[in-house]
C-alpha cells in the first residue's frame, strides 16, 4: 500500500521525476498519486523523498514470493522470489 502525506510534502518534485510509471503529478504544489492501479509500488518515490512524506509497504508482486512470504510465511519478506535477492541464498525463482 502506498500513501502520500500532503502535510509532510514539500513540493520538491523529486518523486514524479523518479517514478518509472509516471503516476505521480504535482497538484497545487503537492505530490499526488494519479493512478494507483498503474503504480508498481516499487518505492522509488519513497526512497528519494527527503521528507518522509510517502509511506509504502514493500513486497514482491509475484506468485512464488507471495506464497512463500505472505501465505506460508516460510521466508522473510523480500526473499521469496529466490534469485538470491534479499538473502544470502541463491535459488530458483517462481
Amino acid at each position, binding site marked *: 500500500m502506498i500513501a502520500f502525506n500532503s502535510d509532510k510534502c514539500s513540493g520538491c518534485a523529486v518523486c514524479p521525476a523518479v517514478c518509472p510509471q509516471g503516476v505521480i503529478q504535482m497538484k497545487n504544489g503537492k505530490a499526488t498519486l494519479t493512478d494507483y492501479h498503474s503504480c508498481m*509500488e516499487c518505492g522509488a518515490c519513497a526512497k528519494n523523498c527527503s521528507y518522509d512524506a510517502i509511506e509504502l509497504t514493500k513486497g514482491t508482486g509475484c506468485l512464488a514470493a507471495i506464497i512463500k512470504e505472505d501465505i506460508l510465511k516460510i521466508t522473510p519478506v523480500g526473499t521469496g522470489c529466490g534469485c538470491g535477492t534479499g538473502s544470502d541464498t541463491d535459488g530458483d525463482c517462481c
Partner: protein
Amino acid sequence: MENTMSECCTSSESVLKNPVTISFTISDYIKLFYCWIRSFRNNISVTPGIYYTGDQYDVTAPMLVTSNYLLTFYLVWRVVRRLNVRLLVIDTRGINVWCASGKGRFSAETILEHLEQYTPEQKTRSGKLELILPKLSLSGVNLKVLRRNMIKPVIGPIYRQDIPAFLGSDTLKDCREDTYRFNLRDRLFIMVPSLFQFSRYLLPVVAGLAVWHWFFKTGIHYQFYLLSLTITLLYIILFPLLPTRWFSVKALSEGIVISAVVNAWMLYRGVFSWLMAGAITTAIFGINLFFGLYFTGNSGVSNYTLVKREIVIFLPVTALVLVASAVLFILEGVTS
C-alpha cells in the same frame, strides 16, 4: 568476456582493480542464451568494476551504472559498444537492475563502495563525477546520498535502446518523463522464457495424462501441452487487450473464449461428451488462471498489494478448478 566471468554466489567476488575493456567469448553467448531462457532466474554474473568501450580508457567518457547480471551487462553493452562510454558494474550478485534495486542490492551505498576502489584520477578530471543511473534502479538508489558524495547523478533512460539518443545530447538531462511501458516488444522478449519455464509445470501433467490414456484411452495427452502453450502465448500477446487490470480476470476472459472455441470444435467433430467437455473446460480455466497468477512475476507491472489480494482470492479457486478437471478426466477415462 575473458577473465571476468564468475558464477555468482559461489565465490566472493572482488571489484576489478583497473578499468578493463569488454569482449565476449562463445561460452559467454551460450551463457547469455541460458540467462534469457531462464529469464532472470539464474545468477550468472560478471566481475564488478569499471569497464569501457573503445580502444583506450577515457576518463571523460560518460559513466553508466548497471548490474553485474551477465544478460543485463551484455544488453547494455550491445547498445553502447560503438560509443565512447564507461560502465560501472555493481555487484548485485548476478541479479538484474530492477530486482536488485527492489531488494536493496543496487543502492547508492553499493555504488559508492565500488567507486572507492578506484583512484580519483581513474574516475573524473572535474572533481565531480557524473553518473548515469538506469531509471529502474531508483527504487534502490537514494540520489541525495550520491549528491552528498560529490557525485552528480543523472536519471538515465528506462530502456537501453534509448541510451544512444540520451547520450547524444550536449548536456545530459534527467529522463523525468521516461516511463515503463511493458509493450509488445517487452512481452515478446519474455514470451519464450515464460513458455519454457511454465513447461516444467505442464510436462508432468502431460506425462500423467499419457499414463491415464495408456490405461483408459481417453485420447488426451500431448494435446494438453499444445493447448497450454496456446493459452500462455495468447495471454502474453493479448495482455493489454484482455479486460481489467487483474491478472486472473484477464485469464478468465481468455478462458471463456478458448473454452468456447474448443467446445465448438468438439461439437463440430462429433466428439463432444458432457464429461469430456467439463474436463477440458475446467482444464482451460485452471491453466489460464494458474498462468495468469504466475505471470505476475514475469510482467514487471505488478503491484504488490493488488497482486497479493488477487492471489489470496484466486489461488484457491485455481486449485479447485484444476482438481475438478483432474477428477473429470479420471471419470471420463473410467466411464468411456
